[in-house]
């Protein structure tokens, strides 16, 4: 028990950041799973984060309510973004989303009333890690449900081949629109969780760093299954901590090498349903053959 407490004291914050990154990774996964590579999770996180910080700061609402507002704000922002972006083809969309991330930074630097500008913003409340965990569990469960619903099936089809999906009656743009909104809601929640954990926001808080963390987490963990991004976020957050413990001098290099090795040996991520199915198919085939031969 004591050992557990010690561990929590030392690595509790790592776990909290891993959970927050899991929100971001899931948010990215939401669009990725419909074949859209977008960095706009950063934007949704910023909207959610600043919204939560400001409402808690000025309107004195409760943390729970502000999480809700952050989710709604993120979702709305995502809906607007989706309307503009869904006209674009893949690579252009990726660029446009990067551009939006950079614009967000400029806006948050130049709109001190909303964001505290260059001075940053103090967030008066702190969220309990347990609450973050519960929230993450709820969100993850929602992704599990999505995966096993008609939406999940449709989104996989759209990801693999939007043209074919459309001739089967699946409207790709609408599915992707929904994906964006989900991404916005989850991103907004993640942004608020980050705000209530760091308790200090600046224009740097929601910037390229998050963009790479989230995409790396999603792909590293496996972008073909809802559980992948969660696993990826934990691995990606823990990597630097572990490297710091073992090879403090070259921790960044070591972190890069670890990431590299994972990708080289498991290029589709740690959780790869396709690989599982291939193995299962092989077993099935063996069984059938034995039946035939018998």
């Amino acid at each position: 028990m004591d050992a557990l407490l010690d561990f929590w004291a030392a690595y509790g914050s790592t776990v909290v950041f891993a959970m927050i990154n899991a929100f971001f990774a899931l948010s990215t996964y939401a669009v990725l799973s419909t074949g859209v590579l977008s960095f706009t999770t950063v934007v949704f996180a910023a909207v959610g984060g600043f919204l939560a910080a400001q409402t808690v700061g000025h309107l004195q609402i409760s943390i729970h309510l502000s999480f809700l507002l952050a989710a709604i704000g993120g979702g709305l922002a995502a809906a607007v973004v989706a309307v503009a972006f869904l006209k674009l083809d893949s690579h252009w969309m990726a660029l446009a989303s990067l551009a939006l991330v950079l614009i967000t930074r400029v806006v948050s630097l130049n709109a001190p009333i909303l964001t505290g500008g260059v001075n940053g913003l103090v967030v008066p409340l702190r969220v309990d890690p347990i609450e973050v965990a519960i929230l993450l569990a709820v969100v993850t469960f929602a992704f599990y449900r999505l995966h096993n619903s008609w939406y999940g099936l449709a989104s996989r089809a759209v990801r693999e081949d939007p043209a074919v999906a459309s001739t089967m009656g699946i409207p790709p743009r609408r599915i992707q629109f929904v994906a964006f909104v989900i991404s916005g809601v989850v991103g907004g929640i993640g942004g608020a969780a980050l705000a209530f954990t760091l308790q200090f926001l600046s224009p740097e808080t929601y910037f390229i760093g998050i963009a790479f963390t989230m995409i790396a987490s999603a792909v590293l963990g496996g972008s073909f299954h809802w559980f992948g991004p969660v696993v990826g976020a934990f691995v990606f957050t823990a990597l630097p901590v572990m490297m710091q413990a073992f090879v403090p001098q070259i921790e960044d290099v070591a972190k890069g090498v670890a990431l590299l090795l994972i990708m080289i040996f498991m290029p589709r991520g740690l959780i790869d349903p396709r690989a599982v199915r291939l193995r299962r198919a092989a077993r099935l085939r063996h069984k059938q053959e034995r039946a035939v031969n018998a």
Partner: protein
Amino acid sequence: MHLFLEQFVNGWALGSLYALFGIGFGLVFSTLGILNAAHGTYASWAAIVGYYAVVWLNVPFPVAIAVGVLAGGVLAIVVDQIGFQPLRAKKAGLLGALITSIAFWIILDSLAGFATQQQSLAFPASTYPNRMVAVGPVMVPQMQIITILALIICAVGIYLLIQKTRIGAAMRAVGWNEVAAGLGGVNARVVILLTAFLAGATSGLAGVLGGIATSNVSFTLGEGLLLKGFAAVVVGGFDDVRGTAIAGICLGIIEVFVGQYVSTAMRDGVTYALLLLFLILRPRGLFGSTSFLRA
């Protein structure tokens, strides 16, 4: 008017760097299908190696450039063979390669930090042409002229290589599908090495020139180029060198003019907002890359 012209040239030279970098970046993107986040570090490393060649070995300016370019190319090959080659066999696609390249970015960046002792270095003033030259009514730094010419030469050369030669056809073939190219007898390995080298070398050139011109040789050098270079590639229509060159130059000029006439604090914001607007109005980029797949 004078100021306008001066800033125009400044923007053009700056944009030429973006374009030069973008050409290399776009080459791997369009032919090898890799969105390479580590590309920026090639530029950083090219500048660093060029710098040490000058400081330690006292090599003259052109040699320093050549050494830097070579370093960029070789680094690109090494990264490709260690990181991307295994993925090709496993068909990991764009995302896998993207994350691998992020891993290399982390590694090479922090190694570059060690190599420069985390400092930003600069080529000693005496080791490169640093006078101002009168071009018509305006005074232009020699490095800007060199940069502008370098872009023109590289853009034309690479365009011709890719579009008009058999090597270029082989490069495009391998980029599409190694097996399909192999069926045509193309040695995919060699072509990939060649492409990687060429891409690394071009971006390396941008790195050395940029490092010299901005007095900033450090691990942060490539990062700035990366975003702008990517923008140039996409806006230009990503399989067209001409588009990249033009888009890069425009990007530089817009950036400088927004800084001069609108507001520097808003510079990036305005530049990227324009970019976004352009993309939404013209969703396939400047040269609207032609599709080659059927519905």
